[in-house]
């Protein structure tokens, strides 16, 4: 069956996608000496926002103050630029393969509203967890695995192990 590459159903071969992603990750280490990330950009934005709204509070908080320094704004963080790139790259791919469309994707067994509540709750939990683990699936797990760091491998196993267990508990949300 010939697929129309622009009707939104075409995805590249997952092994090709993996090699592409691996080469991007390798290049990141080779050029910058650090890995990729995602949740770090959210952290920088939150630190920056809180510092703008309530500077005294942010400086008194032991967590925000770790990431505040006098010479650089927390927004001028490497990961903030990288994540802007991620959105551009995702948009380019979505354009190329015809996937640009506003929609709530959900299992036919649940309503769109249920999906949005679950997505928001999942995001909140991921936000909390990524701070404990000092990174998310990108920054802690994937980038950590590429350099065989203990934190990367252990975090990866904890994320996927726990996600496997919980996804069967919340099976109705998906299938």
């Amino acid at each position, binding site marked *: 069956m010939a697929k129309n590459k622009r009707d939104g159903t075409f995805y590249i071969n997952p092994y090709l996608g993996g090699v*592409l992603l691996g080469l991007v990750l*390798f290049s990141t280490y080779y050029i*910058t000496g*650090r890995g990729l990330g995602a949740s770090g950009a959210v952290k920088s934005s*939150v630190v920056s926002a809180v510092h703008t709204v309530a500077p005294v509070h942010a400086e008194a908080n032991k967590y925000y103050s770790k990431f505040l320094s006098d010479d650089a704004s927390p927004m001028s963080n490497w990961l903030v630029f990288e994540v802007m790139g991620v959105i551009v790259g995702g948009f380019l791919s979505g354009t190329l393969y015809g996937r640009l469309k506003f929609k709530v994707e959900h299992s036919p067994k649940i309503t769109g509203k249920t999906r949005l509540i679950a997505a928001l709750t*999942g995001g909140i939990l991921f936000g909390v967890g990524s701070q404990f683990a000092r990174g998310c699936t990108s920054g802690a797990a994937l980038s950590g695995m590429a350099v065989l760091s203990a*934190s990367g491998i252990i975090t990866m196993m904890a994320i996927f192990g726990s996600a496997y267990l919980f996804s069967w508990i919340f099976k109705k949300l998906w299938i």
Partner: protein
Amino acid sequence: MVGPLIPMGVIPETWNNVIALLLGVGFGFALEASGFSSSRKIMGTFFGYDFVVLRVFFTAAITAMTGIFYFDYMGWMDMSMLYINPYYVMSAIIGGIIMGFGFALGGFCPGTSFTGVAIGKIDAMFFSGGLFIGVFIFSELYPLFQGLYNSHNLGGAKIYDLLGMRDTVFAFLLIVAAVAMFYGAAFVEKKVNKVEY
């Protein structure tokens, strides 16, 4: 040019953010083109109907790892200069478990949700919004978590050191394990009923 290029001073530091943007474009493209902008495609890995996450994730990890080992062996990159996330045992495990819980409810991780946002997935926008709330909650409650967050610090520990293995032996075993999982995934996919999404 011996890497890492920016820490070695081969490329000036001022280019760092431009390079971050460009690498991010590659990252986002690879994620979206592989199907990571769809939460139901991502969740296929846990129910056995689509193992795209397992395939992409482990292929990417072993590709990057092999490149790093090869460049280090050839003297083209000093692996010891690469940033290693410190391993705080309890915090890493608990954080991973909380993230797994969030994964099962939300169907995304932060990076993949951003590609969902980029193509207009409203559920991805809610997930991404949740990330900001989650980070805010953690930060505000940090005094409660501080002890746990800073306990059992093993620094930039390597997995092969903890297991008492040579680095190359562990790397080789990881590749073998990945290939075995790829075969296993293809086997399971054939047995599991297709899910339309």
